[in-house]
C-alpha cells in the first residue's frame, strides 16, 4: 500500500511548498506546539482549521493535535468526531492523503473509525506526563521512513486515557498487516511490562490504518521536535511525511 501511495505522489510532482492543516477543536491545547514544530521546516506552511469549518484550505497533510477536544465530554474524541471539519478529514483520509493524530487526535481517529480499537483510562489511574521511550517497530510507513527499525526514541506522553485496547482478532490483524508502528519500551529498546506506562495491549503506542496513510499515536512528537525541548526525536516523523509529499526535498 505504501509503495502505491508513494508512486502516485511521484507521478504528480508537488511544488516544494507544503500546506499542513492543523485542526483546532475547542479544548485543543497542542495546536500551537504543532504549528511551531511544523513551521520549523522550510517550505512547510501551517494553516489552522477551526472545527466548524468545511474547508481544508488546500492542505497536503492533516494533523489532529493533542488536547481535550470538547472537554473530553462523554469520551475523549467522541464529540469531535462529528464536527464539520472532521467530515472533510474523513473524506481526505479515505482518498489516501496523510492524516496524523497525536494523543487526543489519536482518540478522535479511533472514534471516527479511521483506526481500529479504543483508548481507555490508564492502568494505574493516573494522568501521566513524562518523557517516555518508544521503539519504532515499523519503518515501512510514510511517517517513519527516516527512522531505523527498532530505534528507541525519547518522546513525551501526557494523557489520562492512553490505554490502547482492541479485541484479540483486531490485534492479530494489526500484527499481520504490520500496522503497529510504535511500542513503549525501556531505554534499551526491550518491550517489558514495566516500560508500559498505561497498560496498552502489547505496549502499543501508535498504529497506522491498513492503507498506511493514517497514523495515530499517544506520544507527542511535536513536543520533541526541538533540542531546546530536551529531545529532537519527534522531528523525523514530520520530516518523513513531508518528505514523502514532495518526494524528499524538504529540509529541516
Amino acid at each position, binding site marked *: 500500500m505504501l509503495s502505491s501511495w508513494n508512486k502516485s505522489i511521484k507521478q504528480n510532482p508537488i511544488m516544494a511548498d507544503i500546506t499542513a492543516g492543523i485542526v483546532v477543536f475547542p479544548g485543543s491545547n497542542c495546536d500551537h506546539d504543532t504549528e511551531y514544530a511544523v513551521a520549523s521546516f522550510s517550505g512547510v506552511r501551517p494553516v489552522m482549521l477551526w472545527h466548524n469549518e468545511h474547508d481544508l484550505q488546500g492542505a497536503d497533510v492533516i494533523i489532529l493535535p493533542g488536547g481535550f477536544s470538547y472537554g473530553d465530554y462523554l469520551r475523549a474524541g*467522541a464529540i469531535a468526531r462529528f464536527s464539520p471539519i472532521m467530515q472533510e478529514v474523513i473524506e481526505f483520509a479515505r482518498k489516501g492523503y496523510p492524516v496524523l493524530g497525536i494523543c487526543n487526535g489519536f482518540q478522535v481517529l*479511533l472514534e471516527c473509525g479511521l483506526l481500529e480499537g479504543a483508548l*481507555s*483510562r490508564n492502568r494505574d489511574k493516573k494522568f501521566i506526563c513524562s518523557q517516555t521511550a518508544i521503539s519504532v517497530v515499523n519503518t515501512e510507513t510514510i511517517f517513519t521512513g527516516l527512522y531505523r527499525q527498532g530505534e528507541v526514541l525519547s518522546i513525551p506522553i501526557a494523557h489520562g486515557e492512553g*490505554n490502547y*485496547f482492541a479485541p484479540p482478532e483486531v490485534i492479530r490483524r494489526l500484527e499481520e498487516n504490520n500496522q503497529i508502528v510504535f511500542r513503549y519500551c525501556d531505554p534499551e529498546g526491550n518491550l517489558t511490562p514495566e516500560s508500559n506506562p498505561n497498560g496498552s495491549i502489547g505496549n502499543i503506542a501508535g498504529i497506522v490504518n491498513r492503507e498506511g496513510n493514517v497514523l495515530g499515536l499517544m506520544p507527542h512528537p511535536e513536543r520533541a521536535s526541538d533540542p531546546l525541548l530536551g529531545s529532537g526525536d519527534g522531528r523525523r516523523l514530520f520530516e518523513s511525511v513531508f518528505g514523502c509529499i514532495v518526494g524528499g526535498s524538504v529540509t529541516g
Partner: protein
Amino acid sequence: MPFNAKIKVTLRQSILDVQGKAVEHALKNLGYTTVDSARIGKYIEVSINEVDRHEAERICNEICQKLLSNPVMENYAFELEQVN
C-alpha cells in the same frame, strides 16, 4: 407524547475500570469489608419528541451506537417511558 429515555452506558467486563477500582478501595478503606467490587458507568437522560414507541426505540438504539457509547469497550441499555 414524548418519551423519556433512561440510558445506561457501562464498561465491558473485559475492560479494566480504574474509576470503579478506586471507589472500591475507598469503600473498603471506610470499613465496608463486604463490598466486593464497584464499577462506574454513565447515566444519560434523553427526551425524544416522538409519538411512536418503535420509532423512539429505533432512535435510542441509533444514538447509543453512534455517539453515546463506544461499542469497542462499552455496552448500553435503556428504558423508555412515555411522558404525560
